[in-house]
């Protein structure tokens, strides 16, 4: 089964698990399944219309899904999906 790597700031919503397995066949299915299983995660990853939030990047291996087939990117049993929060800011 494919694995989803949970970033440190969101692990409190997955009982401190750093990885979660998924049955999804696409990135979208995997993320939706994860969000349903771990409700606290949902608001941090998905917007009100269940789209991935703009400040969350999803990687399949080392590839940004935006360079692949976005949420429709298919995943295999050995796929590793990473949820990557945008880290940015500034003084004023």
């Amino acid at each position, binding site marked *: 089964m494919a694995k989803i790597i949970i970033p440190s700031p969101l692990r409190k919503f997955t009982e401190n698990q750093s990885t979660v397995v998924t049955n999804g066949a696409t990135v979208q299915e995997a993320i939706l399944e994860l969000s349903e299983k771990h409700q606290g995660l949902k608001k941090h990853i998905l917007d009100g219309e269940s789209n991935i939030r703009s400040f969350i990047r999803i990687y399949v291996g080392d590839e940004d899904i935006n360079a692949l087939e976005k949420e429709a990117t298919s995943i295999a049993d050995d796929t590793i999906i990473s949820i990557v929060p945008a880290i*940015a800011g500034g003084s004023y």
Partner: protein
Amino acid sequence: MNTIQINDSAKKVIQEDGIKTFPNECCGFLYGKDGEIRSIDLAIPVINDKEGDQRRRFEISPLDYMKAEKYALENDLDLLGIYHSHPNHPAIASEHDLAKAMPFFSYVIISIRNGEAHEIQSWRLKDSERIFEEEKVFLPQENSVI
């Protein structure tokens, strides 16, 4: 109020990175152990990947972020936060810092004024209200609480 203890070597890394990068903003990862008092034992600088004015903005690339998570897992550390500098500005979290803040992380800010390191403050997102709460910063060698 949460308390964060930043050990001397991590503090020096943050100060030196802020001075070296001035007048631009520096940034990096903070590792250690979480507990009643969050302990920062290691600070590792990372490239400010922001395109545009780095004097008032920073950004960490997704690939660098993924490497940081991997480093924590491989070294049995917790990735506990991010530091960055505010050149010629106080170490107060801004609306830009808040906009993309994640829960759990400590956002440590150092003020660098005219190339010299000044105060260090730390902020953590209060998730329910989406506001920053200041953390009490404990710097052991100076035996002082800011």
